């Protein structure tokens, strides 16, 4: 049975969702877009955008051996993490396949939280039991908002929050009666605000009020997906299927271009040997590509010199780049070769035509912080 739940912000999202389009991610019902997808994606680059990120899976770990367990589980050593800071890491199946990726935040000596785009609760809970570590799924206990855009810092500052945080840092703050956590774990250069589910509507209202002078705009999941692809970020279940089987060897970190989330000096994480063994053999890589087309081409075969060399995953029209872009997995030897693929000529005309594409370095656009308005 498919479980669907409303996020704590649903009542506000429903009132603003003029397109009445909804989508499920991680079992949460989310607005696809509130008015216009391109306008929302541009708001995150020109002004400030607010997105409901309560759908992200969050789990708390507590216990004297929590650090030991997480060091074993994750591809970075949690012992090196100080309270108030997070790192990004992977966890692998015993066979070396990527089961998940996320940010691990240290709240205290024996207290951690993991935030990820996809749930892996049962496998992690069972593993934690081996170390006597208590786990608690907090996904439905609290809600989260992402505040993205060049005016995000000014908005939070004007609202009375303290946004002076390094990347990956977080801080709990008592904000005029609300207990909120402000973090910078996102990939889009913004902030996240987390609070208890009962306080979420009040949090939304305060942020929208404080953001009005900055032209704040609620953005749906479609616009956030565009930002993901512009940043070259692949998401589980949207772009790749996590290793479900304990012994699964695929997808490898190298095939997803996620090896930067592995600390090579960390010697005892789960499946390190499998990772080292598979690493040299990997023939594919996940890359961002730009298409000489306005029409996106998701899940399409990529060819070079007439031979198939890979395929696209998510593909969207980027209003900032004014062209279609995609994430694609292609043969490592073909990274510098001109690629071609077939796309419909236009949205209205389904006739296929061949267009060229090329691999580009991610992120495809300058980070949002660099677009910050003059002081």
């Amino acid at each position, binding site marked *: 049975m498919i479980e669907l739940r409303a996020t704590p912000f649903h009542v506000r999202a429903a009132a603003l969702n003029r397109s009445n389009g909804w989508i499920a991610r991680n079992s949460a019902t989310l607005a696809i877009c509130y008015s*216009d997808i391109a306008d929302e994606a541009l708001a995150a680059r*020109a*002004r400030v955008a607010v997105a409901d990120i309560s759908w992200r899976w969050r789990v708390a770990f507590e216990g004297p051996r929590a650090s030991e367990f997480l060091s074993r589980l994750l591809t970075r050593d949690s012992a090196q993490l100080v309270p108030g800071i997070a790192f990004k890491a992977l966890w692998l199946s015993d066979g070396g396949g990527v089961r998940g990726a996320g940010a691990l935040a240290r709240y205290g000596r024996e207290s951690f939280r993991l935030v990820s785009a996809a749930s892996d609760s049962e496998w992690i809970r069972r593993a934690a039991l081996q170390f006597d570590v208590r786990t608690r799924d907090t996904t439905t206990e609290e809600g989260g908002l992402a505040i993205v855009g060049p005016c995000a810092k000014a908005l939070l500052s004007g609202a009375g929050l303290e946004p002076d945080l390094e990347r990956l840092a977080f801080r709990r703050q008592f904000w005029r009666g609300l207990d909120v956590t402000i973090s910078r774990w996102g990939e889009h250069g913004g902030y996240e605000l987390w609070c208890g589910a009962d306080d979420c509507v009040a949090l939304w209202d305060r942020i929208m009020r404080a953001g009005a*002078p900055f*032209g704040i705009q609620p953005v749906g999941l479609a616009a956030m997906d565009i930002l993901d692809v512009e940043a070259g970020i692949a998401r589980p279940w949207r772009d790749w299927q996590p290793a479900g089987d304990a012994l699964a060897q695929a997808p490898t970190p190298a095939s997803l271009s996620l090896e930067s989330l592995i600390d090579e000096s960390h010697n005892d994480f789960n499946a390190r040997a499998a990772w080292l063994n598979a690493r040299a053999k990997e023939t594919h890589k996940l890359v961002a590509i730009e298409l000489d087309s306005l029409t996106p081409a998701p899940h399409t075969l990529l060819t070079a010199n007439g031979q198939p060399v890979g395929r696209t995953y998510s593909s969207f029209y980027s209003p900032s780049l*004014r062209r279609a872009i995609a994430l694609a997995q292609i043969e490592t030897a073909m990274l510098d070769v001109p690629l071609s693929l077939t796309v419909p000529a236009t949205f209205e005309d389904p006739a296929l035509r061949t267009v060229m594409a090329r691999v580009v370095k991610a992120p495809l656009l*300058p980070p949002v912080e660099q*677009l910050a*308005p003059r002081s």
Partner: protein
Amino acid sequence: MRYDVCIVGAGPEGLAASILLARSGMKVIVAERATHPGGRCTTREFHPGFRASPFGDELAPIPAPLFWSLGLAQAGALFLPAPASVAVWPDRVDVLGPQECEALDRTTHGMRDAALVHAEAQARTPIPRYLRFLRHRAAQAPWPGAELGDTSLAERFLTTTADPRRQAHLMARALEGRSTDPFLSGSALHLLAPGRGGSGTVAGGLSKLADTLADTARAAGVEIRCGADVVEIRRKRGRVCGVSFADGNDLAARSVISTFDVKRTFLSFFQWNTLPEELTRAVSTFRFCGSTARVLLALNAAPDLSRAGAPEALRAPIHIAPDIQDFAFAHAAWRANTIPKHLPITVRVVSAADPSLAPTGAATMTLTIGSVPNRLFDGAWTHEKRGQLRNHAIARVEQMLPGTLARIQAIQVIVPPDIEEELTVTEGDLWGGEIAADQMFDLRPGLGERSPRTPIKGLYLAGPSTTAGVLGTCASGAMAAYAVQADMKSGRLS
């Protein structure tokens, strides 16, 4: 030192041309009279903390392949298309959403894109000298969009909708800042011109685009010389050999691209009596139509447009044009060199789309007014007459957006002579010549050679006096660059 190409004017057209030429290995210099590159893409602080682009808020679209090849997005230029189009009356607000705008514009945007492809093909094809006479008389493929030359705007919009206010709304979108009789055959050509859902505004103001283009040009090896006032384009044995500057210095170049309008180019940079008579006659009969005034307003808060029922309405162009007939009356007044009674005004709260243009909580508003004559029937623009225009315009805005007047902190008025003075455009015409059936496509600028080439060997015309200049931003510069590359390759410039 001898350059391959000297480009006169560091506006977006000149900078785009310089990037394309430098990337093809040519030695390129851009000479700009002002202290900063940008031309009409300028953004200034007109009141402490309030910034606006004085000569326009929106740009025509940069053709997609050109936009990609210039790498503007990666360099930080972010275009913000208008999220809607709004027209206001005291008792009604009409909002066209993005899907409606796209549906309305699909045909004409298709024509515009196809016309640009046609212009590029022309630019890339040098005509051998021995064929030039024959080719001019041979049947040419018709320009896409040429059919608009015998259609009027009124004809088009009266058949689109039966709602008279929607008709006025569509007319206001088509004619923003310009003047024409909408019942006149050929006025539908304005649908191809900028100012109606093009690339939109640029985050940080239009100067951000100019800065991005200038940085890209420098990175490509282009020399940009600011404060260099070109006073003459020099010729030797009938062909261009360089330019002379106001400070007395000369510069040698194999070819020159002028981004100025056709009149400025031929009647300012050459001694007119040394040019062929038919050329000077063609240039002097080319009609200009300076009709745009701008009012920049610093407000202590954004106006209230909640009655529109759409939060994005404040970021959209807000047209004030009660009736379709008003455009005809306004044009008649413009022809009589008087200020029209019913000014067609487009209001933009530019800081709503880009908060960096105003202090937090305040707002920058611009008014683009059409049908404002370059010279008034009773003499030049004086301080009092500017005041009259300002009061007239603000009264209109206050009528449609009540409460605006009380929010005003500062006002700056820009009339066509100011545009002429600052941008050196004839009669303050930002569109480089009247858009009419006899001044478009192969007849723009109608010098006997198909633009961007001119009858003077080695001289190319970019800018708004060419058809590509009307159709898109940077497009005319690109066409001039393609023509120079083709002519260099074919030996026409050797």
